[in-house]
């Protein structure tokens, strides 16, 4: 059953068409990998799906309902976007992991946070670490927990392993593999050759935001 459908979606900025008339269906619990040359509109496509930008024409249907009919914050809590090189907020890791609780007006759940920290191979006391002391890989892992601590229906991963050291990359990839078993639909953008080798469903985009080839293994 389709959890996400893009019908004739196009996106134009300053008279430059970035996505032209794109159709795409993603089944629930699917793991879709999008690849293609830089600047072909992959990240823009994820931003449209995440409702951080609105298509110039066409519609995006999520769980049977038009994206525009959702309360925007609630939609984004269900279709969560994790950025490449994410920015961490305020001072500490806690400040960052507190935000998802604040957004949902819930009390901070230390045990839950500890579980997620362990999932990405970070110790429980990592919570009080200053964000300025974190490596790139640690920042990305903290950012991923921000997206996952209240599991979304769809997780959009925008080159989240790009530029990571091999250990962090392995940890993140393990986490992604685990998520596929947790009924989270995943859509990732990647250039990584290892990730492309193991990907089951791949969409190749070419310049101009056109889907060039779809591979299902």
């Amino acid at each position, binding site marked *: 059953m389709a959890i996400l459908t893009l019908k004739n979606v196009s996106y134009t900025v300053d008279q430059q068409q970035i996505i032209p008339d794109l159709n795409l269906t993603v089944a629930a619990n699917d793991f879709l990998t999008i690849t293609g040359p830089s600047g072909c509109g992959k990240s823009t496509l994820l931003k449209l799906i*995440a409702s951080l930008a609105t298509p110039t024409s066409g519609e995006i249907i999520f769980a049977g309902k038009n994206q*525009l009919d959702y309360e*925007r*914050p609630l939609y984004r809590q269900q279709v969560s976007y994790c950025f490449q090189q994410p920015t961490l907020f*305020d001072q500490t890791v806690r400040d960052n992991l507190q935000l998802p609780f604040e*957004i*949902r007006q819930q009390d901070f759940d230390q045990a839950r946070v500890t579980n997620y920290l362990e999932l990405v191979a970070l110790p429980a006391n990592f919570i009080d670490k200053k964000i300025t002391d974190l490596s790139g890989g640690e920042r990305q892992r903290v950012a991923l927990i921000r997206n996952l601590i209240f599991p979304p229906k769809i997780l959009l991963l925008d080159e989240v392993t790009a530029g990571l050291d091999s250990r962090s990359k392995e940890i993140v990839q393990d986490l992604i593999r685990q998520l596929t078993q947790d009924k989270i639909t995943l859509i990732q953008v990647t250039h990584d050759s290892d990730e492309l080798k193991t990907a089951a469903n791949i969409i190749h985009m070419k310049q101009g935001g056109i889907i060039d080839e779809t591979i299902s293994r």
Partner: protein
Amino acid sequence: MKQLVVNNASLALAFMLVLVAMIISTKEKLHLAKDIIYSIIRAIIQLTIIGYVLKYIFQLNNAWLTILMCLLIVVNASWNAYKRNPNARHHFRDYLETFLALFISTFVTLGLIILSGSLKLVPSQIIPITGMIAGNSMVAVGLCYRALNSQFRDQRQQILEKLALGAPIKTASLPILRESIKTAMQPTIDQAKTVGLVNLPGMMSGLIFAGVDPVRAIRYQILITFMLLSTTSLGAIIAGYQAYRHYFNDQQQLNETN
């Protein structure tokens, strides 16, 4: 009361002070000479007109005319604060929002001072105080707008990520909003800290010039300090909480043009 002596001849001599600024501008190639001349001519004309207008209004002592004059001050201050908003969309609604911030901050503050019994309901007291309150609120609102704009530009990525996590626009903007309100209030707070130590402000100096006992004059200055804290905080909060929404579109997405 001591007689104040600023006749036309002494004013003309004092014009030498402007020449100092102009010489510096020319020597240092600041290209401000034209601007200085323009501002001076404008100030002389504005002050001359307002001098005669105020003389007429004070003599007439009519409540409606006083209210009209106060409203004019607020309308003008709002226009100037509105022009300082780099994100103003040239909509009348944006001007109205600035006007609302100036109107509420000015008249709530003025109302409280009147209720405290510190001011008499006479044009010669109400109008200058309204000008003082609205002027400070105008500066605070303008500062708030500029701080909002620069922070929305500098922290664009952070806001995007908060939105992506499902934060409502208010939650995503709150740190920026708080910082901007702080920036707007900071000069007033700094001024309150140094008043009397570094500068003797206009109101107090004016009273002392007019022969009032400095001990009495400070009471007015304390009142002004309270008044300015109230008006700048009210103005910045009302303006900031309205202005931040304009950085987002109807879909709660950050506008592209920030």
